[in-house]
């Protein structure tokens, strides 16, 4: 059996979702943040903690040993717990591990959690690898993405205003999401103020705060045994992870990695880009939505800005991009982000997203990238 057939051999489902609102750093402990999300997910699935066979905690910033100190407060049941670190995709990778564990047959019910609190620095390993480079100290992530924006806008004749419209849309979506860090509708004029780097402004860069998100992954047997409501269980039909290969020199590496990972996920699911009704992408910076829409095959190279302007990526359009508000508005607390994306896709596929519901959503994707560089993609389907 190879990895790409595992999810079809023993199907896995998301049966519960829970979030703690993403917010600015506060005095609330990570234990309190994480427990809020897990308790809500258990209650959503109508299962008890004693029914959970294993837990994975996606966190990049908390340091060693976060899981048990948190989750034992639900009852020290002695189950296996593991922290998962994969930079910005840490939460996505905790979902991937939970899916793999259930699909392998080792467990029937597994919690995937993401939780983090911001620290002074990111403590990121790439900076300590002992490989000096010229740009150290002058190119931070927002400038990396400002450079991508520069290349894209020059190549395709796209304006600052067109890129900013991604942020206008995602802030509007976030204004409808009670779990979003930013819940304000923003005009194009507001988005275009406060330049940070290149064409990117403050409101085109995601806020990095704190929060938590949890999903419960279960097998058919688990659903049967615990009498979980089947109509609210959404199937995970692809889980793909890739790291950056050796691409042609240049600035398009992030999009190339996403194209490869997306293609692997579509192949595993037996689906294609036109099947997607909902897509949560890694829009840490507004330009990324355009790059990844094209890399994932939702439109031709250079077309994404026009598709945003036409409303095609709005809620109600052909594919709703980041109906949660995305990283730009919902926020990017690192560990929780990828889990929160999966929770949003599940909510949309269930038809429970209220005022931000994409009509008739049947297939959704969650996409994250992380420094290093890594990309993690999940595709979910309403059975």
């Amino acid at each position, binding site marked *: 059996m190879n990895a790409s057939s595992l999810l079809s051999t023993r199907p896995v489902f998301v049966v519960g979702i829970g979030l703690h609102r993403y917010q600015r750093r506060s005095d609330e402990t990570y234990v309190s943040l994480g427990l809020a999300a897990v308790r809500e997910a258990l209650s959503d699935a109508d299962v008890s903690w004693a029914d959970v066979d294993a837990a994975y905690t996606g966190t990049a910033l908390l340091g060693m040993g976060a899981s048990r100190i948190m989750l034992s407060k639900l009852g020290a049941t002695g189950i296996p717990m593991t922290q998962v670190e994969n930079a910005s995709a840490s939460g996505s990778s905790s979902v991937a591990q939970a899916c793999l564990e259930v699909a392998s047959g080792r467990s029937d019910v597994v919690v995937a959690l993401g939780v983090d609190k911001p620290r002074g620095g990111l403590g990121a390993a790439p900076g300590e690898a*002992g*490989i*000096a*480079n*010229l*740009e*150290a*100290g*002058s*190119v*931070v992530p927002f*400038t990396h993405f*400002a*450079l*991508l*924006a*520069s*290349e894209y806008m*020059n190549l395709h004749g796209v304006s600052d205003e067109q890129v900013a419209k991604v942020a206008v849309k995602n802030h509007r979506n976030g204004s409808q999401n009670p779990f979003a860090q930013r819940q304000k509708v923003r005009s194009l004029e507001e988005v275009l103020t406060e*330049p*940070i*780097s*290149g*064409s*990117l402004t403050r409101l085109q860069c995601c806020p990095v705060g704190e929060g938590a998100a949890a999903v419960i992954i279960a097998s058919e047997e688990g659903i049967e045994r615990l009498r979980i409501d089947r109509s609210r269980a959404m199937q995970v039909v692809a889980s793909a992870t890739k790291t950056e290969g*050796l691409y042609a*020199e*240049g*600035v398009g590496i992030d999009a190339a990695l996403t194209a490869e990972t997306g293609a692997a996920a579509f192949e595993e699911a037996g689906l294609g880009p036109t099947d997607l009704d909902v897509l949560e992408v890694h829009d840490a910076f507004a330009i990324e939505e355009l790059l990844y829409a094209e890399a994932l095959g939702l439109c031709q190279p250079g077309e994404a800005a026009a598709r945003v302007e036409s409303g095609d990526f709005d809620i109600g359009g052909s594919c709703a991009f980041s109906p949660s508000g995305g990283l730009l508005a919902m926020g990017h607390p690192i560990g929780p982000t990828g889990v929160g994306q999966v929770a949003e896709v599940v909510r949309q596929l269930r038809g429970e997203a209220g005022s931000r519901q994409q009509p008739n959503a049947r297939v959704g994707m969650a996409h994250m990238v992380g420094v290093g560089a890594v990309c993690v993609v999940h595709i979910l389907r309403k059975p």
Partner: protein
Amino acid sequence: MTIQPRHPHLLKLVDPPILVGHRCITCERIAFPPDPYGCEKCGSPASNFEKWDLQARGSVQAVATVHRHHRPTPPTPFTVGVIELVEGPVVKAIVEGDGVVVGSSVEGFLAPEEPDDAGNVIVDLRFRVTR
């Protein structure tokens, strides 16, 4: 008093300055920055690398002016370019002067920073537009 490059392993202090990358003897890949571990193309250990001089000349693929920075240096605003060197590798570096756009031809030069109290000077590689 000393004159030191900010990145001594990456740069030769000659005029015009030379960037020091590596070439993998096994697969002939030329890379910058040089690294002490191994080849991303063929997996050879770094013992199989030779130092490889690269001209600090190239063309701008992308450009961004930074308005907010987490440190006092470099002072804002400053402009960063993605520069494809004539010999292939791509670097990111500060580009000084007006008129830099995608497609500009640029060349490297050594920019001295303010000396410290002992008179020691750090020089940094910057690029400027040639035409």
